[in-house]
């Protein structure tokens, strides 16, 4: 039973963010993804589907959209007498303090951790999207009698997105870990999902801070690989690192493969998000849609090929959209052409426009732009 044993902690402090314009007014956690989700929906749903019913989110900056999205937590079933979603914003408004590492912010919120009764904490980041059952991870952790378990994934270095490198010995113990720029020769990367006892987390936070360390993984864990039993759990499902603009585009386009769509959204559990009461998508007389995903509330009169269309988008007659991502409530005017474009929310493309990015560097239009 995960419910009384494990709590979730989603760490948004200094999340790697090279998402450029997409995070101009929001944190990475609330970057829209996959037609109707925000990045944080994946980790939240994974926790809930794994039986975790108490989740805290360490918010850091630009978290208005986060508060709006998460609300009371009821869309993830985290709004019951015995469950809950806790948003832990920074405790200080001093800019100096805000810049400090996650250890400092965890320390500031230590009351939340000390008051909990759960034996384990699953720590995770929001920019890692996958559909994982965490129960076997905790079982593995107990079986190995590990101090810390890192969920790892086989990695091909050509894939976009930045990730930490992990090296295991034959017994599955982590012997080396490096940040993404390290030269460690390994085919494993960290999914930034870590399991440890709650007491150990508190201990690490206090002792590392006392030694002048700032970051949980980079300092508290990576400098203690010889003192702690850190084990690697290999996850082999689909996983995307969404922390650069290139990786955002790449992982969005991956959803246009039916096998990825089925795995990421359905197995082992569904991904939950804030419910909007949009009607089903409407395809009118001239619609031509292929190889795309389309969300509810859309009205499609034009052509959509190989694209991701979010909720409430209107594609007018004669418009042709290729290889693009159109976020919520976008409008693409008559006879406009879009190729390799990412339109943030509420962007309006007037009629007859021709907008082209390139495969490696998609054109990005900021929120509410009119072109």
């Amino acid at each position, binding site marked *: 039973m995960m419910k009384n044993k494990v709590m979730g902690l989603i760490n948004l402090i200094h999340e790697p963010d090279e998402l450029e314009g997409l995070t101009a007014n929001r944190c990475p956690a609330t970057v829209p993804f996959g037609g109707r989700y925000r990045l944080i929906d994946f980790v939240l749903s994974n926790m809930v589907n794994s039986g975790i019913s108490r989740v805290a989110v360490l918010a850091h900056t630009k978290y208005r959209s986060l508060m709006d999205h998460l609300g009371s937590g009821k869309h993830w079933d985290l709004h019951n007498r015995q469950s809950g979603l806790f948003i832990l914003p920074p405790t200080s408004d001093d800019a100096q303090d805000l810049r400090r590492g996650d250890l400092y912010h965890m320390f500031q919120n230590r009351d939340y951790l000390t008051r909990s009764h759960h034996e384990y904490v699953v720590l995770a980041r929001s920019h890692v999207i996958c559909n994982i059952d965490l129960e076997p991870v905790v079982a593995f952790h107990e079986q190995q009698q590990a101090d810390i378990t890192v969920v790892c994934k086989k990695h091909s270095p050509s894939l976009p997105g930045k990730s930490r490198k992990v090296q295991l010995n034959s017994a599955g113990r982590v012997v080396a870990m490096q940040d993404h720029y390290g030269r460690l020769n390994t085919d494993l990367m960290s999914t930034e999902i870590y399991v440890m006892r709650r007491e150990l987390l508190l201990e690490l936070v206090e002792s590392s801070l006392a030694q002048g360390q700032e970051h949980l993984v980079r300092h508290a864990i990576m400098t203690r690989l010889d003192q702690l039993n850190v084990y690697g759990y290999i996850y082999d499902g689909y996983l995307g690192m969404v922390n650069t603009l290139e990786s955002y585009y790449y992982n969005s386009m991956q959803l*246009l493969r039916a096998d990825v769509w089925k795995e990421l959204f359905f197995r082992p559990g569904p991904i939950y998000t804030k419910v909007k009461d949009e009607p089903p998508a409407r395809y009118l007389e001239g619609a031509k849609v292929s190889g795309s995903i389309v969300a509810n509330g859309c009205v499609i009169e034009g052509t959509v090929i190989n694209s991701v269309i979010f909720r409430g988008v209107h594609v007018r007659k004669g418009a042709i959209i290729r290889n693009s991502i159109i976020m919520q409530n976008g409008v693409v005017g008559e006879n406009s052409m879009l190729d390799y474009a990412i339109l943030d929310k509420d962007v309006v493309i007037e009629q007859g426009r021709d907008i082209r990015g390139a495969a490696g560097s998609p054109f990005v239009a900021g929120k509410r732009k009119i072109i």
Partner: protein
Amino acid sequence: MGRKEMVAMLLAGGEGKRLGVLTKDLAKPAVYFGGKYRIIDFTLSNCAHSGIDTVGVLTQYQPLDLNRYLGIGSPWGLDRRDGGMAILPPFVKQKGGAWYKGTANAIYQNMGFIDRYDPEYVLVISGDHIYQMDYEKMLDHHKKTGAEVTIAGIEVPWKEASRFGVMHCDDEDRITAFEEKPKVPTSNTASMGIYIFSWHVLQRYLIRDEANRHSSNDFGKDILPAMLKDGLNMFVYPFKGYWKDVGTIESLWEANMDLLDDHPALDLTDPEWRIYSVSPNRPAQYIAPSSRIVSSIVNEGCLIEGDVHRSVLFYGVQTGIDSYVRESVVMPNARIGRGVRLYRTIVGDGAVIADGVTIGHPEHGGVTVVGSDEFIASYKTLLEVEPS
């Protein structure tokens, strides 16, 4: 407990016999409609938008799915501290207790529920119709005319008038006569089955009607005629807009097809009047390179590999390569195999149509229905439902 100006009583016990296999295990208000909704979503959303926060839902026939769907009313904003939604099934009393004998009897048996809120007015509606209506405006009309009873009325085509209860009224909308399903209609103002009563008046008539052993305890047949006979102030609230009784296979199919016009009479996109429903939590629909979808509405979680033309697809439907779905309604999680041809077919939720099956005929014939969770290996096993 706080006093409420108006309490809504939603009659949701309908068996929906004429919907055949679609209501075999399902109360009529829980039948799927419009790619995303259940029929009852429309009346519940109307309540939500009209500022009504106390709704009694009277259930009787096959309540299991319906009850589970309604839950505590959260999707419609009816999970309230005061009022909110209450599901009211028939119950056992010290001296017997009984099924709901008729629509009026259902309200009679729950007079205690209404009295708790001590309302001025009671709105009686049913979960059988598709429409968007502001009940608050109807209440304003009720107050303005000084009515004791207000019945929402809509003009229907003359040739269809005999299917409805029709009302005659004078120039000031005062009801002068009432006919239930007349053979030769002399008015085309049909009752929409939406009533506002001043509660103390209705209470009196419910008690009187219950005492009458010969009564069928029905609003249309007993209560309203009795009120008219006694000369109560009864007015029509004239409604203009889309309203459809989806009581038959044909009308359910038609109402779904009505949504496919470029400018449908029923506007599901109106941001001020969203129809709320329980979210199935599915990802954006996946449209494969091999598919072509035209003049259709498709919900979340669908995986479409075939062609879809003038059809309504609910959440989680999958269609295989080379399949062709035309003028059909495919309910949640149904699987349409490769090379399947569907013409004018309603496919129940969870049904599976095996590869290569053809149902219906491209040129002629009525609507064919496949029941929930059925497996169709070949189409000869199907009974065609004749148009009613």
